[in-house]
């Protein structure tokens, strides 16, 4: 280990000792409820009271005291840097101040603005250190011996904890940024009766820019398949993605973006969202959808959550309905949970379905409210309303063409 590394090793040890003791003190002073932190506190306690830690601390402070004794006199002259062990010397600044005190009046003093330009250690700095260590052999040996006796400073358990804690800390920071916008987070509770009751859940990505609209989803567990229909651009996809994210985060054990969250512990979360059709591929998009549906059905069970968006939408409405009926029927038999976003209103009429609808704004039927509420699918879609607004409906066109 080089001379400069010896001192850095000591500083690392001092920082570690101080951080561990101060963290232990702070953690001991708060009321801890979680098993994880209680175990870690006990673990910290065992480290701090261990013979190895005590000995490392004692020796680190001894090395620090030795380093503090190192004081050198340096002379920079021409192209030479000369270093001596400091014996004595008259402070030039004090001498000058005393000498010119007789001229000191009460006039204005202009301060010299000094912009320090310290960056990385230069070779001149290193040369001074080299000289200093050369003169203070005893102190140098204390530093060297400390490094040899304690080559590894950080306990493996503490190292792992710091990495894990970093995840929680960064998540808390993420939460705080969203909470500042007025959106709540809640620790989810897992239900055992199959019910779901999630209130005011929202997209954290939209919440970050202050544009999220909270929604609810609820079932007693008897019916587990939800269809989401309704106007174009009405928030159906955002609703299903947000619920998927919430379910995923709840499995990580962190607070979720909602005001209230009770849901089953989903053993698996599976999705089937539209993919771009690849002209070179052998399978059409519909075939892709069927393969994906088949794979989902193979692994789904009563604790699976399946989220699909416009599955089987590249065929006729009737065929699309038939495929949906087969797919959702199988999922229902397996008692799996599903959010099925579709434009085929007939799917919502199946007996085991909870129908949710993207509602228009009260301010106008063409404007979305982004609220998804229980209800029957709309009689006509937004596309028809828009077409009607511009006289592009069959009856009108027929009349115009004679």
């Amino acid at each position, binding site marked *: 280990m080089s001379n400069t590394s010896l001192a850095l090793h000591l500083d690392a040890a001092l920082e570690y000792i101080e951080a561990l003791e101060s963290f232990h003190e702070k953690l001991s002073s708060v009321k801890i409820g979680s098993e994880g932190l209680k175990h870690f506190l006990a673990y910290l306690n065992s480290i701090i009271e261990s013979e190895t830690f005590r000995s490392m601390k004692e020796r680190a402070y001894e090395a620090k005291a030795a380093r503090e004794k190192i004081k050198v006199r340096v002379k920079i002259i021409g192209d030479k840097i000369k270093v001596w062990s400091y014996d004595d010397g008259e402070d030039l600044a004090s001498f000058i101040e005393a000498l010119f005190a007789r001229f000191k009046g009460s006039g204005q003093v202009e301060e010299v*603005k000094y912009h320090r330009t310290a960056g990385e250690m230069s070779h001149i700095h290193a040369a001074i250190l080299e000289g200093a260590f050369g003169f203070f052999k005893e102190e140098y040996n204390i530093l060297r011996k400390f490094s040899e006796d304690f080559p590894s400073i950080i306990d493996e358990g503490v190292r792992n904890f710091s990495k894990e804690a970093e995840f929680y800390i960064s998540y808390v920071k993420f939460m705080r940024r969203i909470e500042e916008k007025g959106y709540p987070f809640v620790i989810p509770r897992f239900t055992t009766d199959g019910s779901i009751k999630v209130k005011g859940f929202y997209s954290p990505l939209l919440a970050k820019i202050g544009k999220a609209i909270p929604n609810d989803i609820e079932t007693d567990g008897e019916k587990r398949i939800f269809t989401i229909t309704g106007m174009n651009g009405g928030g159906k996809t955002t609703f299903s993605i947000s619920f998927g994210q919430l379910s995923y985060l709840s499995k990580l054990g962190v607070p979720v973006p909602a005001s209230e969250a009770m849901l089953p512990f989903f053993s698996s979360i599976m999705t089937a969202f539209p993919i771009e059709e690849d002209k070179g591929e052998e399978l059409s998009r519909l075939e892709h959808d069927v393969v994906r549906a088949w794979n989902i059905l193979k692994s789904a069970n009563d604790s699976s959550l399946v989220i699909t968006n416009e599955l089987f939408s590249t065929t006729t409405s009737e065929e699309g309905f038939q495929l949906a009926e087969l797919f959702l029927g199988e999922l229902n038999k397996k008692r799996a949970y599903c959010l099925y976003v579709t434009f085929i209103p007939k799917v919502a009429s199946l007996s085991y379905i909870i129908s949710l609808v993207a509602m228009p704004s009260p301010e106008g039927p063409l404007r979305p409210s982004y609220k998804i509420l229980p209800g029957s699918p709309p009689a006509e879609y937004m596309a028809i309303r828009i077409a009607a607004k511009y006289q592009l409906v069959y009856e009108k066109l027929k009349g115009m063409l004679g």
Partner: protein
Amino acid sequence: MIQLDLLRLVKATRISIAEDVRTDLELDKIVAIASNGDKLIAETWMNVLLLGETSEEDVRYRQDAVKDALAHRETVLKMYSISGDVLDRLRREVFFFRTDDPAVVVHEASRGIEIFADALEELITLLRSTPRFSSKAFSDLMESLFANIDEKFISSAREVAKIFSFDQGIDFSVKLGKYNSLIDPILLMPKEKGSLLSKIFSVGKEYTYKLDPRDRPALKSYMT
């Protein structure tokens, strides 16, 4: 501290209608004739003329000083000439135009100290060869100057100027701090050059690092 009070201006305050008096009594004309174009004299004249509430005692103090100045005319003119020269040299040779560059500030301060030391030496030599002043104003000034300025002070001031010319290098002490930092730097008075014998005894007690000739900029940057 050096006491300089030939006019007793400290306690006096400027009259409230100073600018009106200046215009109405055409004081600028008088000052221009009296100062003969000397800015320092003109400024001092104007300050004194515009003072209010001057006591009789203060006026007598000034009258005595004037009498003394007339009695020691050559000496007083020489004193004035020394102070005028020093201000002129400072204006011409010292440039305090950058206070954010320590190297420039130190260099200019060093040059300024040299100019002052020369002037003070000349002033003290002049005053030592002058018969005693009788007025309180000049006597007090002499007493204060002799009490504060002597050969030792002038020599020390020149030594300081020499140190900051960096011809003999620069000495400082440092301690080792956290993360290999060099902390508590203190500039030190250079040591006297030792004898040959002391140099022989110092072998092994000195560590020297020699910079590559192409590495002078690094040294310059480190010293500032």
